């Protein structure tokens, strides 16, 4: 079992508070991704769970038992570091066996566990090598091997793929996910790459400036972002935003372009931010006028950068279209795909933008 509960976690370095009260529940076996921009406190939160940082306030519980005061080694949590942190003076087998040797497990038990882990991770032929003799991807796998031989209650990963090239990252992403499906160990994974978050997570925690901005499944965050920040962070290319106001039942931009029907709950005259995803737009005979600036065909889909009187927007389509720079097109937002945020607080105005 490995359920994790965080209650009002606060952390200060000197006078500066970097975590402002984090609440989070992670069920046993869940793959949770912490995502957010650089400096938002992801690593700090992860290291607090590991016991490498002492928190200033709050409670960390593992399976219901508070573990605040426990040393890292008493927590039964394994961590994979961004730069792998392999012991350079030990070969792969010794690296993986280190925790088991410290736990004074019997020799044959250790050998069996190391061999099993090496089998799972394709490391069997590399057991005698030293870390300096391994490629980045292999080092990454050894770091994971070191974590899984322990059979801990929780795995922590801090941006484990950020030192790998793009292709290897995609491959390792799949391997980590497969490993999780096989071992079903509770996992908390830090990244600032939203694609990694979307593809791997059961649950995504979007953080910003030491706060939790929103928690939800990948598609929940995509379909119903709670704020402009989450809406802009999740999804690629990012959501388009236009300032608008409710006028006579429709959302109208400053330059009097009608974006769509004002959602219920948006009072007449209220200033809002209208948001719509590039993939939720379609070409129409009438609608928002926009001038084509750049056309980027990628094969499967085409991405257009468009200029409106109220700002630039991005439009992606899977159709083969014949427009070029300088042309003017008209766009409509797919029904139910218009998101609406308060102009002041940037929080979603919940009337059900997804139209369910």
């Amino acid at each position, binding site marked *: 079992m490995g359920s994790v509960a965080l209650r009002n976690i606060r952390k200060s370095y000197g006078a500066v508070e970097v975590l402002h009260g984090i609440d989070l529940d992670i069920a046993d076996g869940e793959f949770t991704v912490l995502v957010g921009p650089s400096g938002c406190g992801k690593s700090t939160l992860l290291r607090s769970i590991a016991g490498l940082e002492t928190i200033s306030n709050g409670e960390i519980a593992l399976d219901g038992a508070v573990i605040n005061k426990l040393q*890292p080694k008493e927590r039964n949590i394994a961590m994979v570091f961004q*730069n792998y942190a392999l*012991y350079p003076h030990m070969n792969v087998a010794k690296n993986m066996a280190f925790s088991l040797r*410290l736990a004074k497990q019997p020799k044959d038990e250790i050998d069996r566990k190391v061999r099993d882990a090496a089998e799972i991770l394709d490391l069997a032929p590399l057991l005698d090598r030293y870390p300096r003799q391994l490629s980045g991807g292999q080092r990454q796998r050894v770091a994971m091997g070191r974590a899984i031989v322990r059979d801990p209650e929780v795995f922590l990963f801090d941006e484990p793929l950020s030192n790998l090239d793009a292709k290897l990252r995609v491959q390792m992403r799949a391997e980590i996910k497969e490993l999780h499906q096989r071992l079903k160990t509770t996992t908390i994974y830090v990244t600032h790459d939203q694609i990694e978050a979307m593809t791997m997570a059961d649950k995504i925690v979007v953080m910003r400036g030491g706060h939790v901005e929103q928690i939800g499944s990948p598609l929940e965050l995509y379909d119903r972002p709670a704020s402009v920040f989450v809406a802009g962070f999740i999804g690629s290319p990012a959501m388009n935003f236009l300032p608008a106001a409710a006028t006579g039942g429709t959302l109208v931009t400053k330059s009097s372009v009608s974006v769509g029907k004002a959602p219920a709950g948006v009072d007449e005259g209220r200033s809002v931010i209208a948001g719509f995803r590039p993939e939720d737009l379609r070409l129409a005979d009438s609608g928002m006028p926009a001038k084509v600036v750049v056309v980027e065909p990628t094969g499967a889909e085409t991405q257009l950068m468009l200029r409106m009187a109220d700002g630039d927007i991005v439009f992606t389509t899977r159709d083969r279209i014949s427009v070029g720079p300088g042309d003017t097109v008209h766009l409509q937002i797919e029904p139910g795909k218009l998101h609406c945020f308060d102009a002041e607080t940037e929080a979603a105005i919940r009337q059900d933008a997804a139209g369910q």
Partner: protein
Amino acid sequence: MNETPRTLYWLALSLVGLVIAIYILFPIFWLFLASFKTQAELAALPISFWPEAPTLDAYKALFSPTHQKGQLLDWPRLIGNSFFIAISSTILVVFFGTLAGYAFARLHFPGRDLILGGLLISRMFQGAALLLPTYRLMSMIGLQDSPIGLVLLYSAFGLPFATWIIASSLREIPRELEESAMMDGASRLQSMALVVLPLATPALITAAMWHFVGAWSEFAFASILLESNENKTVTIGLASFVELFTLEFQFVGAAATIVALPIMLVFFFGQRYFTRGLLAGAVKG
């Protein structure tokens, strides 16, 4: 690519290096050769370079204690004293230097960087200025004519620099390695012993070599503190030899060779640790 200028440059550089090396090493080599000559050969003209009939007589004389010109020159005893003092103080310095170096590298406490910088500055004081106060201090605690006193004194003098070397090298060892060890179930002491120290071996050996050589060849403090013959060290013995044997130079040569030998051995075996890049592959790369 035209390789000639580079080759020439390299040759010129090597030549200059060679000249400097000969200039520095020749007197030492001369002394070394002299230790195998007989007194007659040393006195003869023209001066011979290589010993005509190499003999170990001077060394034999050195190791069979005899009264010579009123002095008891017990070389086995001197060598024993010097080894005892140099090795004990090296062990003390490396042991405490490692603990202190670790604290400077890893723990946070007020004034840490100031104190670490101060350690280095403390090396800039001239030892000579401390001779008299040290003598008074050592007599007050009754250790003025004792090898133990020198062990403590050399350790105190050597500790700042050893701490500094070790702290600098421990700082280079990524913190994540230790954090990883602690996640793996190690206590702080275990992570230090099993992860940090093996990686810091080159620095520990460098510090030990540095201190051993300094302690082995120290003269000033040993000569004012040690009075009785049975407590004296090789450097004092060597100095008195230079005074005693102005003509029988083979004895001086033999003694100098014996005194230089441990230092040469230390460098011969320790050299590779200066350049060993054990950390490769620890992080990224």
